[in-house]
């Protein structure tokens, strides 16, 4: 008999905190919808359906939506091409250097997407790409017409390579929990290893695979920074996310005017398929109970003996690592050492200097930017941790009837692109600056912090839900009986018990907040620039060398943090989540 725990005493703080956070989410979602009916700025009166007429526009159906679909499906194809073999090789076979490879994939998972995209531009661009230059030199032609830029397929390739770690970690679970007894039974029944793989193992893990694909496709289509760098910003390859951005932040050549309502419509268009995908994802999760591949007994997954193919398999992993990180980052390092990007040569080696690193602080905007970044990263990490903990203590610990809905609401920002939330926040900021000048929103760090918090709550609450569910309710009840109040119990008993999960959550959130560029850029003003935005603007302004240098510094910081995290072995209690980038 399961007994709902807790009772009427205490727990006002968790309710208040989760109420505040979740009503914020609801207000923002409603505000996005409201904006689609407002003619101009939210401060202006009127009501219009004109924005919704955009849905019928030719540009949307001939360019934007096909591009978005190509990017979404293409990215999934690319990342599945890498992630599926990787997940199998690194979880179920006798591949060499397994732990090292997994560590590297985890580090790639945390690398800022826009920086990798910058690396890819330097590698594969018709005009400046080092690969193009090398090949054209070898073949003796003027240029190689192959580029990641200005093509939806190029965007799909880069997004796919970047999202591979996310799918990899989502697949690792089902791969690892596949009970070898089921495979052994097939072997006994006379199946060859290959038949077993196709007829037994694959059918058993496919719900997990499908779930991972749907989940990641949501991330792919709502990603802004990579498409923007690779052609959306120039208006050549517009996708839905870039339409939102440039409707409100003109700067692109196509939209010279503000179109706030339009941004809302695009946001809705982007959120609808994501909501549908989330719904299917949850259904697959529920249905996969039927496919439960864990039998509960202790076992070790049987490892497929690769035999002589071991090194071929390792080579495949190495190729992925090269493409995903080593090449883009190496080219960034190379470019950061040169005044103008050129192929490695005797002459180029002579020009190598650290000039781009001198005065780097000045070029990214001085100490103010560093301070802004620190403020955002630290406060987002701590507040996400605090709020997730509070929401989880309502979801996991209270017996309120609405607790299921609290959980659904906390998941909602996962289905709605961060850009849409940033848009709503920007509009509310404009409203506030007119009607509540005391409320510092427009162009402040606070508005970026709020956007990041909302965006990270789904991930945060997954971690804290699992952590809290593993603290036996009697551990809290015994403290109550011993005469402690709710707050004391939270502080003295529960927090120390879930500390590893909280630290894990704080560090991950800090890293993801550090590398986030889309929302910070969208909400940026003259006084709230953070490092990622500064790098973006250096690149945008054509200072490739300086941007590369700053990017190298950022990657260095992220990589170091990530290795520390992995080496100190901080794990959340009860794993089962990917790397968190996948909650866009």
């Amino acid at each position, binding site marked *: *008999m399961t*007994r*709902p*725990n807790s*009772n*009427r*005493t*205490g727990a006002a703080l968790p309710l208040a905190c989760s109420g505040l956070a979740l009503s914020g989410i609801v207000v923002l979602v409603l505000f996005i919808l409201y904006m689609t009916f407002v003619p101009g700025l939210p401060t202006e009166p009127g009501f219009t359906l004109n924005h919704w007429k955009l849905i019928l526009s030719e540009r949307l159906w001939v360019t934007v939506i096909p591009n978005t679909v190509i990017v979404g499906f293409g990215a999934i194809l690319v990342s599945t091409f890498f992630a599926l073999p990787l997940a199998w090789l690194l979880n179920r076979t006798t591949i060499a250097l397994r732990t090292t490879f997994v560590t590297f994939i985890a580090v790639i998972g945390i690398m800022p997407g826009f920086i990798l995209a910058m690396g890819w531009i330097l590698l594969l661009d018709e005009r400046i790409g080092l690969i193009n230059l090398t090949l054209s030199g070898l073949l003796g032609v003027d240029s190689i017409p192959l580029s990641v830029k200005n093509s939806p397929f190029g965007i799909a390739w880069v997004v796919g390579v970047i999202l591979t770690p996310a799918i990899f970690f989502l697949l690792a679970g089902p791969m690892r929990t596949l009970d070898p007894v089921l495979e052994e039974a097939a072997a006994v029944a006379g199946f060859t290893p290959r038949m077993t793989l196709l007829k037994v193992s694959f059918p058993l893990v496919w719900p997990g695979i499908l779930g991972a694909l749907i989940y990641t496709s949501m991330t792919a289509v709502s990603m802004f920074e990579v498409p923007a760098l690779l052609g959306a910003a120039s208006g050549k390859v517009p996708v839905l996310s870039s339409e939102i951005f440039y409707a409100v932040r003109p700067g692109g050549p196509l939209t010279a005017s503000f179109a706030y309502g339009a941004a809302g419509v695009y946001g809705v268009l982007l959120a609808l398929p994501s909501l549908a995908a989330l719904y299917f994802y949850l259904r697959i999760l529920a249905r996969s109970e039927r496919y439960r591949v864990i039998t509960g007994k202790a076992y070790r997954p049987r490892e497929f003996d690769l035999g002589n193919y071991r090194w071929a398999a390792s080579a495949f992993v190495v190729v992925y690592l090269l493409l995903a990180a080593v090449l883009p980052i190496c080219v960034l390092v190379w470019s950061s050492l040169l005044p103008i990007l050129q192929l490695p040569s005797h002459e180029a080696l002579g020009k190598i200097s650290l000039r781009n690193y001198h005065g780097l602080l000045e070029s990214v905007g001085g100490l103010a930017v560093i301070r802004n970044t620190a403020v955002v990263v630290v406060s987002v990490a701590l507040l996400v941790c605090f709020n997730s903990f509070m929401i989880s203590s309502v979801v996991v610990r209270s017996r309120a009837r609405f607790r299921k809905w609290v959980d659904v609401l906390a998941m909602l920002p996962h289905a709605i692109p961060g850009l849409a939330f940033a848009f709503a926040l920007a509009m509310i900021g404009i409203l506030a600056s007119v009607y509540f000048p005391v409320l510092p929103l427009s162009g402040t760090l606070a508005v970026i912090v709020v956007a990041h918090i909302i965006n990270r709550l789904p991930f945060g609450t997954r971690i804290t839900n699992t952590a809290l569910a593993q603290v*036996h309710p*009697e*551990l809290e*009840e*015994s*403290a*109550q*009986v*011993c*005469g*402690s*109040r709710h707050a*004391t119990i939270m502080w*003295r*008993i529960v927090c*120390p*018990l879930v500390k590893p999960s909280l630290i894990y959550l704080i560090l991950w959130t800090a890293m993801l907040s550090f590398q986030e560029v889309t929302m910070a850029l969208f909400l940026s003003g003259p006084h709230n620039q953070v490092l990622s935005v500064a790098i973006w603007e250096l690149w945008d302004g054509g200072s490739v060398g300086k941007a590369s240098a700053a990017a190298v510094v950022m990657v260095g910081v992220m990589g170091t943090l990530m290795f520390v995290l992995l080496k100190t072995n901080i794990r959340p209690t009860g794993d089962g989540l990917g790397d968190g980038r996948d909650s866009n």
Partner: protein
Amino acid sequence: MIQIKALRKYYWSERARINAVDGIDVEIAAGEIFMLLGPSGCGKTTTLRCVAGLETPDEGEIRLGEQVVFGEHGQVVVPVYQRGVGMVFQSYAIWPHLSVFENVAYPLLHGRFRIAKSAVKERVFKTLSLVGLEEFADRPAPLLSGGQQQRVALARALAYEPKVLLLDEPLSNLDAKLRAEMRIELRQLIKRLNLTSLYVTHDQEEALILGDRIAVMGRGKILQIGTPRQVYGRPQSEVVADFLGSANILPGSIVTPANNGNGGSVTTTMGTLKCALPMASAAGQKLTIMFRPEDVILCAVNSSPRENSFPGVVAQAIFLGGRVQCEVIVNSIKVCGEAGKSETFEAGQPVTIEIPRHSIHVLL
């Protein structure tokens, strides 16, 4: 000391209301060890949790000493942390991030039962010595054996010297031998400290050994309250008889009513039995009789016929170490009996069973 009146607690399942506790009345005297015994889901733990304050009842009244901790139709609800009871949980609920000392010191440092900081150490060691754990004070809690964890849980519940101790199946996670030892030890300790205890268990042996009085529960109601001897020897219903030990239960009807203390006779499918009957009984009246397996006397065939003896055939004989448990078919009825360990009965062997008149009990 503990008074529970007309206590009710409901849960809502998917479809219907479940009466987890369905009108319970109990009065527990100071210094008494009171057992709530019943199968899982009978409402015993919910009752205990209502007393502790971890559940809020829907109706009824609970008093601890003179204080009403729940009552006035839910107007008075004293929160858990103010009730001042000691409680030992089934899972022990030892805080794994604290040492033994810190676990026991927790109630003395934080919350309502705080004492002067300087006195904490002495009190903790005094409490640990009660359960024989002084030497383990610095041990991190997870590095203790099950029995030691159980003692820490007890020490923590006793540290702030509560008047009332609540125990929720405290011994159910221990292995059989340790459990047997702990029963005696626990009873001695509680008696020595003169604590009023409410003790929940599903283990009938534990209830019989530890309790001053036992309340047998089923489906949210109390079926019978009494001393261990009363409840075991004179169960009032089949459920109680069956739950406390094993029992042979036979339906029958009265042939000869009671007659001036000479007893009467009852006919059952097994045969006609002589036994004590209530004075107000009449011939033909239907009733149920019960007798315990250990009261059945088994002998090899051909012993001289005596009162209440019947011929039968052994269906199964199971050697249990200290005794032999036999199932005997008598007139196509299965009767359970017990024999000494030196007896050698085998399946198919003809035997005579005898049920002494005084061991037959009429269920109402």
